[in-house]
């Protein structure tokens, strides 16, 4: 077993001779092009998959009823399940709060006794107005646009968001004066 073993692959074989440099580069480019085409096609179809043909989600803009349906000083949780908004009426008017916690996106619960929204994930707490006061949430809940339709009902438009920290709660659309 002491004799030296020469691996076969290291011996110059004839197969290398019929492929010159130009031919090699040609085959290499074709190979790479084919690879790029295949992966490109694969990823295109993957990205296409992210955009479904039909969306089974509630409309982003919807009517929630007449202003008189809402009691002053109450948080209305009827629209939480379907539309993910709380509708709150105070002495001056009505606003719609997003039910997405501004910390990591869990859904807080409205606690009537404690008068606060409390997130079950990391304990963030928000006052009735949506302003954060306990736990790790760095900013208040976002508000959505509220306005009156021609038939007197309130329209909530979730495509428009108003952030307190950017001073957007001052914008007229974020609050419906009654």
């Amino acid at each position, binding site marked *: 077993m002491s004799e030296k073993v020469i691996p076969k692959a290291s011996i110059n074989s004839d197969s290398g001779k019929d492929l010159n440099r130009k031919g090699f580069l040609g085959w290499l480019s074709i190979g790479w092009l084919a690879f790029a085409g295949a992966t490109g096609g694969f990823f295109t179809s993957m990205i296409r998959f992210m955009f479904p043909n039909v969306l089974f989600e509630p409309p982003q803009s919807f009517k929630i009823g007449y202003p008189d349906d809402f009691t002053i000083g109450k948080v209305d949780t009827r629209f939480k399940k379907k539309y993910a908004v709380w509708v709150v009426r105070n002495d001056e008017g009505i606003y719609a709060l997003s039910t997405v916690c501004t910390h990591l996106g*869990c859904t807080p619960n409205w606690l009537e006794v404690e008068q606060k929204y409390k997130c*079950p*994930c990391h304990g963030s707490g928000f006052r009735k107005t949506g302003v954060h006061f306990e736990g*790790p949430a760095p900013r208040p809940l976002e508000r959505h646009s509220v306005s009156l339709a021609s038939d007197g009902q309130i329209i909530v438009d979730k495509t428009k968001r108003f952030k307190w920290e950017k001073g957007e709660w001052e914008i007229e659309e974020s609050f419906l004066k009654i």
Partner: protein
Amino acid sequence: MNYIKDLFDFLSAPTISFTLLTVAFPFIFPPTDWFDKKNKQWGIYKLWTNKGAFWIFMSITFFFIIGYFDPYFNLTMTKPDNIPIILMIYSMIFVIWLGMKKAYNNDARLDRGEKPEEWNDPDDKVLVWPDLVYIELIALILFMVFLIVWSILIGAPLEEPANPAATPNPSKAPWYFLGLQEMLVYFDPWLAGIIFPIFIIVGMMAIPYMDINKKGEGYYSFKERRVGYFIFMYGWMVLWVFLIVIGTFFRGPNWNFFGPFEWWDPHKVVPLTNVNLSEYVWVKLLNKGLPTNIIAREAVGFVAVIGYLFIMPLLLAKTKLKNLFEHYGPVRYSTLMLFGLTMFALPIKMYLRWLFNLKYIIAIPEWFFNI
């Protein structure tokens, strides 16, 4: 019995349990001569003997037996999700006990001038094939039997279909992420959810490059690298495993703290109104409104963070840690400081939150930048 339960509830409050652990840790894993002397004096090293193991095992089991017959702790304890945590408490402590026992054994051998136990090939050395593979096969079969029995006896903790409008209360991460969830209570998501996990992984990979002590390599030994032991054990046991235990047993509805024998009252009211450092400084201390300029508003926070992370290591390199700095060189020293100080930022921030209701040291929600 109720007195004992009340005592446990009182001790498990985060400020107390965390402080007790933090204070006890340097005595259990002494990093300096002084702590080592106290450790010897009070006989804490006896934990790492067979007798010590018996007492540790008995006291944990005693706790769980009381818990099993308690109507409230029974609910948390026997929840199918939480049974792995109970196993984890036993296995973690067993593994540490075994390692420390071997380390102390070797330390004693070194003191006597002998070679460590791992120096000689063990007598029970086996061949990979067939001996070791057979052992592994038997272990595999036994483990599968264990898993099958477990899955038959205890139902899977399945819940109702997911519903974005109804988050379970409390909503808990998988058990291995509970430490992460606990960190998220004190830090902004980008820090606790992204930066810290990256730092943990990169930091652990960097340990062999930062710990350049040639002694104690390849064999168990405590005294050859006691500072490294202490830092790693604190980070692992207190800042990760203990946080998992807190998240499992002590966090109830609305993510409030509950003692182990306390009823999980969903309406427990805990005053937690948090205040940012900038509000402390400008509103409470200087009696002024917050400045409109963001940088001016958060200047104190920036000074504190930069001072802690960058200025303090520089000063330490010139004074107290001069020897370490010269031994390690600037690159290794600053890496060690960056990872070490980031790790110790977690307990610091937790205490600031518990004691002063401090929310963020730097709070710039406008830029999604909170520390």
